[in-house]
């Protein structure tokens, strides 16, 4: 849990323009994450901690802090259950240094 707290502190330094109501990443079938996926790699490997495992076995995805690296899309290769697009032009993370 402390790791999660830390990633939020890190993300706090970054600049974003949030596209309200238009998340650029979505879980295709939430039921699949809860019932079939055993590894739930997205909850471990996402460098922005966008994926959280809830107590009921469901995965909650909040893309606001997304670094747009594409890790979740590539790592979900057993089920390909992540619908991933780049944010609309101008939205998303805006690196000051990069």
């Amino acid at each position, binding site marked *: 849990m402390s790791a999660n707290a*830390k990633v939020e502190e*890190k993300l706090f330094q970054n600049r974003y323009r949030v596209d309200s109501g238009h998340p650029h990443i979505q879980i295709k079938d939430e039921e699949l994450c809860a019932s079939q996926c055993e*590894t739930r790699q997205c909850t471990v490997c996402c460098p922005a901690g966008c994926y959280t495992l809830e107590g009921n076995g469901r995965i909650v995805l909040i893309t606001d802090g997304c670094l747009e690296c*594409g*890790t979740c899309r590539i790592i979900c290769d057993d089920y390909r259950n992540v619908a991933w697009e780049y944010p609309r032009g101008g939205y998303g993370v805006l*690196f000051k240094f990069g």
Partner: protein
Amino acid sequence: MAEKFDAIVVGAGPSGNAAAYTMAKAGLKVLQLERGEYPGSKNVQGAILYSDALEKIIPDFRYDAPLERHIIEQRMWVLDDESYIGTHYRSDEFNKPPYNRYTIIRAQFDKWFSEKVQEAGAMLICETTVSDLLMDGKRVIGVQTDRLGGSIYADIVILADGVNSLLATKAGFHPELEPKNVALAVKEIHFMPQETVEARFNVNGDAGVVIEMAGKITKGMMGTGFLYTNKESLTIGVGCMLSDLKQQRISPYQLLEEMKAHPSIAPILDGGEMKEYTAHLIPEGGYKAIPELCGDGWMIVGDSGMFVNAMHREGSNLAMTTGCFAAETVIELAAEQKPFTAKNLARYREKLNESFVIKDLKKYKNMPDVFHANPQFFTAYPEMLNQAVHKMLRVDGVDKKTKEKQIMANFKQRRSLFGLMGDAYKLWRAFE
């Protein structure tokens, strides 16, 4: 009504800028599309700029490009939990112009490069995401953007859209990226006074130091860490193969936190103020993972084409070089009035084959497989090396001959003589 261009370049990173600049300079009508607020706002790199590749495009870039420090010293560290054994190479030769490589801040550098591209005559549109390629049968004839009425046409579309190239993947130009072919790197930038940077690294003026690190910081995963000096900041990061992170269930930021806490690294960062945290995939699949690079009406350059030399930490120079070659191919074919068919564009691949780009990637084509199959290079060896040096340096009344025997016994116990020889052979074959 839709406007038509000679060429559309998707992306304003090093490869896209190199391509757009070269074509615009030759008088072609070029449109460049960038999804960020400004060029560089979506781009992440270590970041080292190797001057050679850029110098071939803009010979006098040193006079006004935003550069941080030129590198006069490279350190390579092999880390155990509490120690490191390393080499430092510093040369005053590297401290004399023209400098060979620099640290840069990508957001600033890409913005500058893009200004040059626009001065050369290319049209740049930012805040515009390309959602699809427009096709006429098998031939690419333009792009679909997320702007209203956003279809734009061109004779050739150059994909410089980065490692996570949805466009190339969606169009079936290259297969989906596999976790074993990409590394995930996370990085932070820590600001501190210029004098502090210079005192900690024993440099002055614009000179700088880079540290490349391997060993237990990656917990047996194939990967490396890095620490680069900028003018008044340090960038520190660590990257590992995605397949390894997946298998070992390690969170990348946790890895970075532990690296920052290493007793050899923490004092260097002490007192700094962290101002940005970034993550990026690095295409490290090497030669065997290079996709198709061109077809009717399209070409792929930079990260999207797997153009990264993971062994030597080179990427942006390959990106610029491939961007240039693609542009030169377009310019030549246009001059010869030949259509941009897969057959004619194959000239791009020929240019690559003759250059350091493919030669270097080919040289290390077996490297990823060797490291994947032999995690001891990232666990047992760093430990064994550090322990051996520790033993020899500790003065404790034990004679040196006995110490040598103990070290050798430890090596054999950990890896067996056969294993040691086998590993040496594997490395030698992979580097051959």
